[in-house]
């Protein structure tokens, strides 16, 4: 058995890789990286932050030229990466605007240039084109001179701070000197301090002027650059394989990123898993227990009025719409008759009172399907020779049912549980929604509605992993409950 488990565990990475590849296809290949960034960061996110996200996630990377530039800057201890990303995004925006203007102007080419409307439209487009050119020039100039400008800007800021600081010291020294003079004391030291402070201030002013000159020089150089085509992009899309590697690496580190609200996905999943399990684990166990009991009973008294009652009740419950049952249950049992809270949740043991009604409704909703399934399984077993043998041996019905029939029925039951258990953590969407239980079902719906890719991805991946583990567990349980099953 141990070898079997080990072998199964060894398959898991491959299965997981398949799941990762599938989610990669769904979330990455089917959507353009920019759109992915928009979905992730929201419609209002700036182009700059979208590019930053793309770079962080490995969708874009610096070209060779960009890398050289970056390394040069880093050697000079100039932080340029953010600005280069920003510039790339600006250039992309400007290029898109330019394409639009070009298409509009082309569209107007065949029209009467003397027409009032055409004239006005052309004038407007011309204005936009001019604006675009100016902005392009500025952006390109920035792209080229970014680092220098930053350095100059920083020097300027530092110099301003220094000038202010030394100015204040100079004033303080002068004030102290004036006071000492007025008091008629020894002022030699104070005079020296005032002179030094004045000299320092003077030097700082010179630094400030130099910084200012640097800024204006860089600016004037920037303005000389005119052609958009001159600039090569510093960024390019990463190839798809590297994107996949980056994507997989994130998942392996359990780094699912942040939700669109800015919370860590792992934190959100953790907080939602508790309420979901609190609702569904007891509900699932109770429903299975009840279904097992009635399934056994129906099989035991097959074709009796009891069997008919159970089967008819099951069919009736299966035929009723689940939402109708929930709505009616909530209205009558909670609101009108006041047996349970209408909706809500609480932390700790206080949650129990909120969970009873949804759990009972879960039992009711699953009753029909589970009982019928169990009845069929049991019927299959009740007719077997070993049951007859057991009865002929004089075993009482209790022993026949629970020791023999039930044990032999466990294999199909375990298979069904193995499928059901991994879905427990994602919760029951409708029950959670109606009863205000802040579980993962609620969260999943929200994530889908908001196209929150990170949350959906995390739920899919965790679902796949738990399914694999549940499958493995079911294989092991097969061997435990049925000695004929040999794992290996």
């Amino acid at each position, binding site marked *: 058995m141990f070898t079997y488990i080990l072998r199964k565990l060894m398959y898991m990475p491959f299965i997981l890789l398949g799941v990762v590849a599938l989610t990669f296809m769904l979330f990455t290949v089917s959507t353009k990286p920019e*759109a992915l960034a*928009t*979905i992730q960061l*929201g*419609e*209002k996110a*700036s182009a*700059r*932050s979208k590019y930053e996200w793309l770079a962080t996630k490995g969708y874009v990377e610096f070209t060779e030229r960009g890398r050289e530039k970056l390394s040069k800057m880093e050697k000079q201890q100039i*932080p*340029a*990466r*953010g600005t280069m990303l*920003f510039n790339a995004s600006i250039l992309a925006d400007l290029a898109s*605007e330019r394409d639009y203007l070009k298409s509009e102007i082309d*569209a107007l080419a*065949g*029209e009467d240039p003397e027409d009032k*409307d055409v004239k*006005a439209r052309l*004038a*407007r487009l011309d204005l936009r084109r001019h604006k675009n050119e100016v902005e392009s020039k500025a952006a390109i100039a*920035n792209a080229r001179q970014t680092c220098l400008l*930053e350095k100059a800007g920083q020097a300027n*800021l530092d110099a301003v*701070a220094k000038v202010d600081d030394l100015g204040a010291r100079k004033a303080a020294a002068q004030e102290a000197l004036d006071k000492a003079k007025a008091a008629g004391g020894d002022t030699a030291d104070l005079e020296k301090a005032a002179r030094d402070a004045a000299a320092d201030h003077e030097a700082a002013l010179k630094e400030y002027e130099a910084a200012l000159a640097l800024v204006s020089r860089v600016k004037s150089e920037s303005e000389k650059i005119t052609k958009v085509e001159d600039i090569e992009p510093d960024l390019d899309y990463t190839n798809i394989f590297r994107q996949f590697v980056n994507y997989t690496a994130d998942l392996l580190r359990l780094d699912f990123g942040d939700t669109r*609200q*800015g*919370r860590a996905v792992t934190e959100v999943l953790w907080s939602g898993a508790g309420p979901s399990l609190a609702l569904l684990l007891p509900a699932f166990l109770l429903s299975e227990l009840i279904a097992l*009991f009635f399934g056994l*009973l129906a099989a035991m*008294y097959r074709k009796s*009025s*009891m069997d008919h009652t159970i089967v008819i009740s099951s069919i009736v419950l299966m035929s009723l719409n689940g939402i109708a049952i929930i*709505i009616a249950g909530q*209205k*009558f049992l*909670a*609101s*009108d*008759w*006041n*047996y*349970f*809270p*209408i*909706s*809500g*949740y609480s932390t700790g043991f206080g949650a129990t009172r909120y969970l009873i009604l949804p759990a009972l409704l879960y039992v009711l909703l699953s009753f029909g399907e589970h009982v019928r399934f169990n009845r069929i399984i049991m019927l299959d077993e009740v007719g077997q020779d070993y049951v007859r043998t057991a009865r*002929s041996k004089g075993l*009482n*019905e*209790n022993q026949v049912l629970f020791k023999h029939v039930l044990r032999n029925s466990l294999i199909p039951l375990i298979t069904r549980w193995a499928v059901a258990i991994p879905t427990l953590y994602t919760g029951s969407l409708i029950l959670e929604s*109606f009863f*205000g239980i*802040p579980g993962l079902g*609620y969260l999943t719906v*929200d994530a889908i*509605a*908001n196209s929150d890719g990170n949350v959906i991805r995390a739920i899919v991946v965790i679902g796949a992993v738990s399914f694999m583990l549940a499958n493995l567990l079911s294989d092991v349980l097969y061997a435990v409950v049925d000695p004929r099953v040999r794992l290996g």
Partner: protein
Amino acid sequence: MAPRTLKWSPLLALSAALALLSLAPGCGGTAATLSSQDEGLVVVRRSESGDLKSIDPQIAGDVISSLNCGMCYDTLLQYDYIKRPAELVPNVTTGMPTYSEDSLTVTFKLRDDVFFQDNRCFHPDATGKTYRDEGMGAQADKGPGRKLVASDFVYSFKRLAALPDSNGFWVLEGMVEGLDEFRSQSFKLLDTGPADDPGKPWRDHLRTAAVSGLQAPDDHTFVVKLTQKYPQFLYAITLSYGAAVPYEAAEYYRRDFFRMPCGSGPYILKSWKPNWEIVWERNPKFRVEHFPTSNAPEHARFKPLMGKRLPIADIIDTRFIKESQPRYLKFLAGELDSSGIDKDQFSAAVTPQTEVTPALAAKGIYLKTWEDPTLDYMTFNLRDPLVGTQGNDPARKKQAERARAIRQAVSMSIDREDYIRRYLNGRGSPALQLVPPGITGYDPKFDMTSQKFNPAAGRKALQAAGYRLEGSGEGPYRALDPDTGQQVSVTICLRSTAASAFDEARFYKASGDRVGVQINAEPLTFAEFLKRQDEGKGQAFDAGWVMDYPDAQNMMQLLWGGNIATGLNHTYYDDPDFNRLYERLRLLEDSVPAEKAEKLQLIEQMYQLLDRDVPWVMINFRKTFALYNPWYIAPEPNEFAYSYGKFWYSDTPRRTEVAATRSETVIWPALLLGLVLTIPSAFMVTRIIKAQA
């Protein structure tokens, strides 16, 4: 068959348990339980149908987020709580601001008694640290909140510009001297610092860089220098975007600031559990401010509150409940003070005479209705080859005429009254112009012909543009393209995949049949809808606009050519004449009679252009219906105000009393259910005993 014997005790036990379960009421009574928790406090209990996204005022862009920002943060001005139409009045200022002669310099004088809430970020031990350094454990040890000063507004306005994910920079964009340049520079500094603190240069720049248009000459004087006349400025900064945040908190909480608010407002955040609830409790350091007084008879219900110190409520507890049924049932049970009315509950709550039903009236529940400054409309994508305007050369002119005819026909095919009756339960009025009732610029005489229900005129327009029409009488009609022989077909993207979207789709399809245009609807998730709209991928979009402030400019800007680039004008309508009129309109003030008159003229001219081009199909203005429990004093509606939480009042002892009567357990159904379960259980047991025998 072998005799079947079965020990019946476990079965009997289970049957008994089932029967007992049905007889085990007592888990209910939430209203009564909550009321006992509320003893001695004024607690307002409310609900929201959506989730809260952020409590960062410079980021909050939706109504729920803005309302919650209003609990904790202060803007310079606020809307008067009871006077209507609502006027701006001082909030943290000593009076209304003064304007320079050229209207470009606005000076606010701040009150001296406004303090930020006590918070960890003000604690000396937290200096130089961040929330993520210290963790939640340290938060209980708070530092005393400091006084709010003018430089806090300078910082907050700069923060609005500097945040890359701010939703609200549009309120100041291009309007404040030096602020746009500051924004560009800020963006360049994002994540450019040392590896262990990449945001440092950005934060330093935000704190220290001077913006010539934002000045704080002393602690009590805040001066804004505008680049151009901006009559909507005061409205714009009264949105949550203009709220003051202390730099200490923004720097301490950083990326968690959206969920760890710290302002000078009336409430302090007690707890926020996403998708569950948010609880605000009274800020003990809130300045001395009183409920306004009035002798007007329509304000009589506020008499018990007039002159009381604000905030009135000790606790404001909001539950996020997405499903309408539990929301409504909780309201009926007395767990919530107020409730909107969903379509499914409408007939149970409101009579055709727009009154509460006798059943609700017997409980003392009352109804309030008001016009909502929201327009629902359908916008065409004017870059689409079929429905968009194409140009004026002879070939294109024909195409443009055809596109215009399609838009006009679609607009005239829609029976807005019928739509409001069927899908909104009468909660709205037909929209035949852009500006909603109650806002300067609305005038029934401005109603546009192209927006009136007139399928015959719509069909005529299509025929005049060259489409061949098949069908007769009430229809259905088919407008056929003369070149291809195919029926004209328009697809509208809907912003929801809920069941109501499919109703809407059916409605549009039936409307299109009246004029021969096949209207297909494509329901999308909201995120997908926004994406498609931004990318301009679609012929038409279902849209809605909630006005941000009571000025017609806020509506007209959606069709201004200059807003194509900003993404507000998704229609891509770019008419030079309309743009010229808008650029004049936005400079006019409603409060100056001559300017108001000119504004009305301009609006009329703009409507003439829109009537000609039909870039939108306006559907309806919304009307809000809300139910209130008898212990709650309903606020005076104002859809523009987000800081009214401090005025809310709920008579908590009365709620306790009434809720107790509403949460009495009804025994007979439990007995009946017990009986129903006991009979088969008994039958089962008998059957088993027989089998044993």
